[in-house]
């Protein structure tokens, strides 16, 4: 696999992991009694957004 290929694959893997961690944060915050505006939920949403955004940039050639 070429060097750019390794880079792209690694980035996609990490972006996917960020989405999963974000979902887990939201689930944990809610199951622990946190509200919609709790830090865990907000961080989780940001993680999901960041992961999806980075994946989108990779697909678009970024």
């Amino acid at each position, binding site marked *: 696999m070429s060097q750019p290929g390794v880079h792209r694959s*690694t*980035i996609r893997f*990490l972006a996917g*992991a*960020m989405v999963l961690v974000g979902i887990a944060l939201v689930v944990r915050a809610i199951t622990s009694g946190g509200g919609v505006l*709790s830090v865990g939920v907000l961080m989780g949403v940001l993680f999901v957004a960041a992961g999806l955004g980075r994946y989108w*940039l990779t697909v678009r050639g970024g």
Partner: protein
Amino acid sequence: MTGRDEVQAQRVGPLGLFSLVYTTSAAALYFALGLIADKALGLTPLVFLAGGLFLGLAAMSYTEGALGHPEPGGSSSLARHAFNELVSFAAGWAVVLDFLVVMALAATTAAGYLGTIWAPLGHGWGRALTAGLVVLYAVVANIRGANPSATRNRIVIAVADIGVQAVVLAVGLVFLIGNAGLITKGVDLGVSPTWANLVYALTLVTVAFTGLEAAASLAPEFRMDGRGVKRMLVGGVGVIVVLHVGIACVALAAVPVQGGATALGSEWLNAPLVGVAQGLSAGALGDILAKVVAISGFIGLTAAVRSAMLGLSRLSYSLARHRQIPRVVARVSSRFGTPWLIIILSGLAATGLAAPGNIKMLAGLYAFGAMLAITIAHLSVIKLRWTGVMSPGSWRMPLSVGMASRSVPIPAAVGATASAAAFIAVLVLHPAARVVGSAWLAGGVLLYIVYRLLTGNSILGAVEVSERALTYSDEAASYGSILVPILGTDLDDDIVQTAGRLAGSRHDDLEENGAVIEAIWFHEIPLALPLDASISREQTELALTALRHAKAVGEEYQGVTVSTAQVRVRKLGDGIVREAKRRGVDVIILSAEEPTRAARTAPAGIGRQVGLGEMTRFVLRKAACRVLVTVPSTNLEGTRSRDDEDEAGEAE
């Protein structure tokens, strides 16, 4: 090809540009984290986030300005086009301060990081010596002028990209596994941190912006289309913001706020990331991690000193080209193609600033310069957009509103308001910045005004010196004495500069081999009057002003002396020939009449004859010495372009 040509031949794409901004921004974390955490406490991540938004606004203005006016100089160049030379100088001078402060900060904290491995290097004389050696390395590297390769840029990008996401993932896992409320611990807004400290921290976070100035200084070498701009703004700024916020979260998790303070701002102020490494894992693993961070911090900060010095040398070169600082300080080495003197001077200044090791004072000074320069940059872009003075088809930032058939960029307006407010906050909240920063600015403006007046240039008007005038040239022959007739026209500068280049010697550092330029104003006395007839006061004043200006221009060339005189003659051509013979000069330099269109389209030999006037032909025919004729280029509309190269004709 000389080193300088090679530099000029290189073009900078989005990745190279991002690499430069990223290197500086990431390195800034190594010294800014402790300073900001000291003030913002539990709100440190939010302060970095707000700083990131501010960075995004500034990046948009710098990018629109740099692509619309692709010249080196950053905010100084934008202000020149939008306002005048004085505002341009103020912006440039503020950024000069920032580059010096960043060098001092980075060199001091580089010593701090090494000091965590061997304590004597991080304290007292050891710290000052280490910082001095870091600056010395940057001086040598910048004078040699080697640039990062494209491969290095790609590696930096790839490692940074992956590294940032790994850090963010680590933050997420810390939250997921540990206590999710950890980073908000100790936050009692208005008390811990206080409002004043919070505002102050917001101004410090802009320390990452030197990367923007350094990047903007590369504007003439940009190679970017609209897609590249979007990639740099969205991807680049996004990566930097995520990095800063992510590391701030990790830092507060590792070194939490306790009792209204964090050790990041005290014990670990000079090496905050080592404190974070030790806080994350205890025992041998923590020690190894801390040493790795210390070494990487030292390397990164040394690179940051070098990057800041590169930005400073480019900015100084731009200031010198526009007669805002004496050209001699930005003289370019013919061997390396770099402004060696300004690099050495900035190295000395940075070493002096780093010696006391007071990084809190330095950070305040930085905020002073950054806020001023960024405010001017935003206002310049607003003015340029309003007046429509941008390159046609160049990139424009989104979100503009139309007012009276003109356009106002909202991001620049918001950025200008925020940075102006932050500048006022710095003045109010930081005594050192208020006193030292104001003194730096006032002193610089005073020197600028004196320099402009002494050289006979307008304080507000634009003056430009050709690049060749700043470069020693191997091709130029050296002459002991040169006669230059001063005619009081715009072309006087050109012929005096040509004379200066010819007079300058590569070995004239001791001014032993410098030449004399005889700048002479010839008063043509009609035959109807005696040769000693009185000359009007206006004519005398005109001659004196032109000669003073010629002297100032000529003597900016190293080792060159300009002597001035007024001579009465019947015919200009005859007078020049006689005066040259009487003074025994080696060469006469004349500015020929502007060639007509017919002359330019005619075959070379004929064109020369058609284009030269009677006086020039007379001097060429009669002079006993060499005669150089500079012929100004003319475009098709018949107007003379300032940047056109002289064409030199020569006759024995």
